[in-house]
């Protein structure tokens, strides 16, 4: 269905383009070949705000000769995306994001963008820092042994990512960049994705990385017998045995169902999906083997880790001579250590705890737009929140502008009660933002027969700003007669066994749960909201929603995704099983003068370009 839609669009747009083109001037523009190449870019940091550096607002003239040349070797799907850019239906930033997903290389995307008269990719030339520094990082204590298969926490995954690499990297701008894979492409239906691997990549232990290592690494994660933390990502998408070697440098992924965003599932977004040797036996702390720009020097559980430059690295050699990670059990000591000059970087700085650093002149804050958020779920299957009007009324009580400006100190953007954050290119921006409206909320309560109000318990975890968020909600809903009783638990007690019937999270009438960043909304759309979702704390069961979510996930084409997204956004505003109040930024603090530090909103930290002034 999606296929037909875009094929029709394709024809239509080609015709339109030809017609428009007749009376357009066609000046020459050269496609620069030295624009960017994924990780070889000087500094990915500038991608964060392309609008500040490269994006031109005024339309420039389009070069159809070059566009036609480029189109000839492109698939229909890719051509459709190019049409979207040329016709202005797809913004330049969305074009680059979605094009990278389809496996178009970044230099090519930049070239197309330039030819379409929208400016090249931002030239990322930036003075390279001096090599040889020792970079000292404060990060949280890994919660368990470092093992690519089981790792589940920020403290652990950042250590893993220092030595091991992914097929592709979901950068700070949500653009996929090639790493161990040079390129990738889907078949016509999005059920088979073919990845071409980089040649000449060596593991720290000596062997060359080849297709069997990729097959083994991914297969290991898709195997239910392996305690794999990535199983919840691959569930219903990629089975054990569905990753197939074609030749030494080509791997095919045969998916359970069409999936337009699959490359994200094997990118740094799925932090378990690092490529390690096929011979791995399950004792990662003995080898710390990988292909990365740094090699392990020493790891001490609960204390810290140090790494040294890998001189056999396939890409540009790392600038720092050494990196040192020091583990902290709490944020306050990290802040003191940064202020006292004992570390150079705090990998992840929560807004509330780090508020003092935000204005410290000796500290730089790297702020990434992320889609991390707190989901406020409301049980759709039991009183008093069974009636969607009541749930909408509660959502209308929240003053989201105040949440962003006050609670999150401006380091967040408003949420619109669906997982479609503004940061996602597939989000339909025409769906109106829900605002605080107490009068309407009161009307809805009356209409639902709950005009007198009621008492309900909000159960949640003591984590980040959640307790403060809960208190704000408690105050706001008082206005419509809802009396919230807060039950704030330790994280262990809140999640319990994390299965229905044995978890405060999944069984509570109302609760707030933290969700980390994801480069695509697929996970947020499935597990917490689908009828069969394993994290469906709202007990939201809606056939229309399920169909829409499946359709969105299958769509390969950005406009088809956008159409489904718009419908999902409207449906969720109507039903409001979950309140998405805000999506907060991912903050990293560094000392002034430190350059080239590249965090991701998944808590990864790329230090190979880091240098001290």
């Amino acid at each position: 269905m999606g296929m037909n839609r875009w094929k029709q669009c394709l024809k239509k747009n080609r015709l339109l383009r030809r017609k428009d083109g007749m009376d357009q001037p066609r000046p020459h523009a050269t496609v620069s070949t030295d624009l960017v190449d994924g990780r070889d870019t000087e500094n990915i940091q500038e991608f964060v705000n392309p609008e500040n550096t490269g994006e031109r607002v005024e339309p420039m003239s389009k070069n159809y000769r070059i566009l036609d040349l480029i189109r000839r070797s492109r698939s229909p799907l890719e051509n459709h995306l190019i049409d979207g850019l040329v016709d202005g239906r797809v913004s330049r930033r969305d074009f680059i994001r979605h094009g990278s997903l389809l496996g178009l290389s970044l230099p090519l995307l930049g070239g197309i963008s330039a030819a379409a008269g929208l400016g090249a990719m931002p030239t990322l030339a930036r003075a390279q820092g001096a090599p040889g520094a020792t970079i000292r990082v404060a990060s949280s204590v890994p919660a368990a042994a470092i093992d690519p298969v089981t790792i589940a926490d920020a403290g652990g995954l950042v250590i893993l990512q220092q030595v091991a690499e992914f097929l592709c990297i979901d950068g700070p701008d949500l653009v996929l960049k090639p790493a161990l894979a040079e390129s990738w492409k889907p078949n016509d239906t999005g059920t088979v994705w073919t990845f071409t691997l980089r040649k000449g990549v060596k593991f720290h232990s000596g062997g060359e990385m080849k297709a069997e290592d990729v097959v083994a690494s991914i297969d290991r994660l898709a195997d239910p017998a392996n305690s794999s933390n990535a199983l919840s990502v691959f569930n219903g998408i990629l089975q054990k045995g569905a990753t197939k070697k074609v030749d030494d440098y080509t791997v095919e992924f045969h998916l359970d169902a069409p999936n337009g965003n699959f490359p994200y599932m094997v990118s740094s977004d799925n932090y378990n999906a690092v490529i390690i040797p096929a011979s791995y036996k399950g004792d990662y702390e003995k080898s710390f083997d990988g292909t990365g720009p740094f090699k392990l020097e020493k790891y001490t559980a609960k204390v810290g880790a140090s790494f040294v430059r890998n001189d056999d690295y396939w890409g540009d050699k790392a600038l720092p001579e050494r990196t040192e990670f020091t583990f902290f059990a709490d944020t306050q000591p990290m802040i003191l250590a940064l202020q006292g000059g004992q570390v150079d970087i705090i990998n992840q700085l929560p807004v509330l705890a780090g508020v003092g650093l935000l204005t410290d002149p000796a500290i730089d804050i790297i702020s990434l737009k992320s889609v991390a958020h707190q989901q406020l779920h409301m049980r759709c299957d039991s009183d008093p929140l069974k009636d969607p009007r009541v749930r909408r009324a509660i959502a209308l009580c929240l003053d989201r502008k105040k949440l962003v400006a006050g609670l999150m100190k401006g380091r967040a953007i408003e949420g619109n009660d669906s997982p479609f954050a503004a940061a996602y290119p597939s989000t339909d921006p025409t769906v109106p933002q829900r605002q605080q409206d107490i009068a309407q909320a009161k009307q809805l309560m009356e209409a639902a027969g709950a005009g007198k109000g009621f008492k309900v318990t909000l159960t949640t975890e003591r984590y980040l700003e959640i307790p403060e968020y809960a208190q704000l909600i408690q105050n706001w809903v008082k206005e419509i007669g809802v009396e919230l009783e807060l039950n704030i638990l330790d994280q262990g007690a809140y999640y319990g066994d994390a299965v229905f019937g044995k978890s405060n999270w999944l069984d509570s009438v109302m609760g707030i749960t933290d969700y980390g960043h994801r480069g695509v909304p697929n996970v947020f759309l499935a597990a917490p909201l689908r009828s069969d979702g394993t994290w469906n704390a709202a007990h939201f069961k809606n056939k229309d929603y399920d169909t829409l979510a499946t359709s969105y996930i299958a769509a390969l084409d950005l406009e088809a995704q956008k159409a489904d997204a718009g419908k999902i956004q409207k449906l969720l505003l109507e039903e409001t099983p979950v309140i998405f109040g805000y999506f907060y930024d991912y903050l990293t603090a560094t000392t002034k003068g430190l350059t080239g530090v590249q965090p991701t909103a998944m808590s990864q930290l790329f230090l190979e370009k880091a240098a001290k002034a």
Partner: protein
Amino acid sequence: MALSLVTLFLLSIMVFLGGQVLPGNVGRAILGPFADQRAVDALNHSLGVDRPLLTQYWSWISNFIQGDMGTSYIFRSPVAPFVIDALGNSMKLAAVAFVLVVPIGILGGVIAALNLNRPLDRIISLGGLSVTVLPEFVTGIILILIFGVWLRWLPISAAWPRDAGFFTQLYYLILPSLPLFLVLFGYIARMARSGMIEALDSDYTRTAVLKGLPWPTVIWRHVLRNALLPTITVIATQTGYLIGGLVVIETLFRYQGIGSLIFTAARGKDFPVLEAGILTIGIVYAVATLAADFLYSVLNPRIRLGTDQ
């Protein structure tokens, strides 16, 4: 001795059963709330925590008695090095704090008692009490800000560099022991002060003075010896706190002590580490009590048994 062993055995059962009451399970704690249930089950099976409780306890205790503390569920490596390192660290910190606070605390109490109701007494008593009621995370942060961030005299983290010598370690331990000093100083000084006041007021002191002994001898041989008995008991009961109760200080100063070891083990349901850690503290308590009893008998001839002097 036998009674201590029974106590420790009961303690091990209580820790084990207490751990079962806590919500969640080990596999969940390691893989997180968002992991697939099949993965959690597989992990629990490989760790052996899906076996019957009695089997689990038996396999743990039978190894423990033979000196094998087992393998950490969470860190997948032997428990013994973790516990030994953490205990060593805790004892070092406790020792530095002790060396600072015991003589100064007693001296403070003695001075206060000798200057009863004079300004010096007021300063020591009130000042000591004031800093005692301040929680150590407050004094800790203030001290770090002053000595670590502004003056930069002392390192912020108590974790010294690898291969640090005795004096370097001592240097790193000064800052974290200061909040402990502040917590304990008022307590010890007040105990010493009240003991001194009582002893100064007693008949034997009056006799000693009246029989013409020089004042320092009276204080040293008659007053202090009697005055310190309750203080010693207090100090002994603080040993357990100093070794095992410093989670806040250890977190703040990033120090790998046994308190934070037990805390993280309890949160992660890492039963072998939890058991070993708590039993270690139990043993420390028992030894400290024994030592206090011994010291008590040295200072107080009345409770010496079977000796003739």
